[in-house]
């Protein structure tokens, strides 16, 4: 996946923050992960892709950041279910943008929300995942792209 294609996912993520909270998220320099499943925080929204590209893309954020997001959105309920819904919504935004940009040949799974460690998600072999740090307020979250051309 080239830089322009990855930019689609970065834009979707930052757009979500701007739309939901009116506050912009800052994107730091992307780097390559040296572990199989890099930088996992408390809540992770995952989409898998097949077709022209294969692999997964996920957004992972710490609990504090997710709660702060809920506060900004005026939501009082901070239960796990709500937090998982919200991380799922971010994954859904990634999925929607990908569909619009890549078209029907980019087959995208239903977004999945996970709490804690990712056990089943593995990037394709021979590939270092791209980690794109996304800072919102003082919190650090990551957008991880582990996709290879199919």
């Amino acid at each position, binding site marked *: *996946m*080239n*830089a322009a294609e*990855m*930019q689609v996912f*970065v834009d979707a993520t930052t757009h979500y923050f701007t739309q939901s909270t009116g506050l912009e998220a*800052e*994107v*730091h*320099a*992307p*780097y*390559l992960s*040296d572990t199989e499943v890099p930088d996992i925080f408390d809540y992770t929204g*995952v*989409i*898998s*892709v*097949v*077709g022209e590209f*294969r692999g*997964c893309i996920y957004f992972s954020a710490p609990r504090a950041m997710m709660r702060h997001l809920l506060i900004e959105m005026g939501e009082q309920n901070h239960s796990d279910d709500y937090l998982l819904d919200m991380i799922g919504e971010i994954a859904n935004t990634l999925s929607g943008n990908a569909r619009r940009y890549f078209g*029907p*040949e980019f*087959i995208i*799974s*239903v*977004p*999945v929300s996970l709490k804690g460690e990712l056990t*089943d*998600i593995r990037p394709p072999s*021979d*590939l*270092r995942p*791209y*980690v*794109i*740090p996304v800072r919102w307020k003082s919190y650090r979250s990551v957008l991880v792209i582990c996709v290879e051309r199919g």
Partner: protein
Amino acid sequence: MFSVKRVLGGKYADIVLAIALFLVFDLGVLMINFYTSYQISSEAVAINLAGRQRMLSQRMTKDLLEMQTAAPGGTIYDKARRELVATTAMFDTTLEAFYRGGAVTDTNGRPAVLTREADPEARHLLETARGIWLPLKRAIGDASRDNPAAGALNTAAGLLIAHNLELLKLMNGLTTRLAALAQDKASHLRAIQTGGIVLALLNFAFILFHFIRKLRRSDAEAETARRETTEILDTVNEGFFLLDRDMRIGSQYSRALSEIIRKPLSGEEDFIHLFEDIADAETLGVAREYLGLLFEDRIRERLTTDLNPLERVEVHFPREDGAFETRYLSLAFTRVYVDGAISHVLGSLSDITEQVRLEKEVELANKRSQEEVELLVGLLKGDAAQTAEFMQKTEQGLLSVNALLKGSQDTAGHAQTVENIFPVIHAIKGDAFAIGIDAFGNMAHEVEKALMPLRGARNIAGTQFLPVTVLLNEMLARIRLVRGLLDRVTDIQRSIGQPATATAERWTRELTGFAARVADDLGRQVALEVALPALDDLPAPALQKLRDMCIQLVRNAVAHGIEPPEERIASGKPATGKVRLKLDRYPTGELHLSCRDDGRGISPARIRASLLRSGRYSAEQLDELSDKQIVMKIFESGFSTNDAPDAHSGHGAGMDVIKQLAMALGGRLGLGTRPGRFAEFRVQMELETAPAAVEPAVRAAS
């Protein structure tokens, strides 16, 4: 050609024949019945007429006797005479009709026809009766005239009285005989009817028995066939099914069909619909179009086979964890013709995932092999050792670039990151072109091009580094490939039996050249002394790691240990620094690698200052650490005492790499130093029995 059996209804010919026979028997009995009924009716008329003859003979006697006793010309006489004439005529006509056949009037006054009586006994009675009757008829005729001759009446009466009883007896006998004949015919008819009905019943029983048995056999055969079909359909690994023109699946299909597409089937389902949630829209469109072609008579079947776009269909089954399981399916179709017209299409579906996986592996292996061969040729043409060194250095540089990216936290940091990355990439580019590895030179150039617009720019966004990161990934992947090849080159060299001394000589030459280049780059003067007598019988991967470690140690000694000539002279040392690299095998079997330089040594104070500057530790934290503990910090990733990174130092990766390599070889790291005098790194390894990836024990000594 039509056979009798075909004409009679093919396999149902015998049942048609049996039913026809049944009808023939029934019709035969019916016709005989009709005929015999008619006969019995005629016999009844004859019996009645024969009975009437008895009565007529008595009446004629009565009339003659009345005429004898009555006065001629009187009423009684005339009445008796008229009756006698009529009775005589009736008796005579009837008798003649019995004898010769002819028309008569029956007892009800209706005309009837009697056939000539053929029965010998009856005939004998008739002939006897005629013998009596004919003279009597003449006498009666004479007596019944208007003016009969005298005595005619008495003659007739006398004759009649004389023969009356006999005639009565004969007519009675005729009646009895005719009745007996009628009885015989009735009995015969009953026998024929009974026979016919028995035959019809036998035929019916045959039909029942034969056809029920045949039906049962057919049912059993059909059941066996159905069971066998079901067994086949349940056993085969392919999904077999029939499609009609509406693309619907028939009621019979193999179990594998449902298993392959992972959903239950009830038959009569739209075939394309089954794939809607697992295949992409384009595949579905192509499939529908192609299935339509299969039902078009004008297109030859062979052409449809050649056109089949569904021989390899990629499908994706969604998993519960949100990921996909990709499988490859193959669909093949054959037309089914009935009476020359396409009635259905027989489809077969199979899962070819394993086959596709193998094909892809082979394809990938071929591609890699081709790429590797090209690289290999390049490596063999050039200096493999030099290439290995370049790869090692480049990987280290790229990893340091990645570390810079990872640490780039804000806009100001981004600007500094660009400035830090640029020289590293530029050095890689220069090195690559210098030793003729143009592919890496070009890739490094691409990174430079991506960085150029960012140099000196304000407000650099993190995502502007994306092209750099992508290129970084590609270069690292390339290095992995080349390093793998280098290992193989070492293997090949070993397999062709290059003696250890040759390896040692080659290493010595390469390391000496390398030390000279680093020294040149950094403005130092170095004499490298290499003693590697223990390189024999080491496995190729270990040799590679050992070599990388030697390069790192030499680089570290020259870049960090040996001081610039003026500094050395000022401290009373020769301008040329001395580095000694040694590999020995101890009597215990252990390998000892050591690299000693007579440079500035490792200064705990300098490390403390560097750690403090880096912000990793506070002054308080550092105060709590002993000098030994401080010295051990040089093995931490990212640590460097060089504030101005250059191509050979300052990335904070060298010591970490040595530690990683020692770990990979299952070795123990040792370090000895005296500030201002020397530094010596030691690695102890048990290569033949070394377990992989054991955390090395790090020991510091002064």
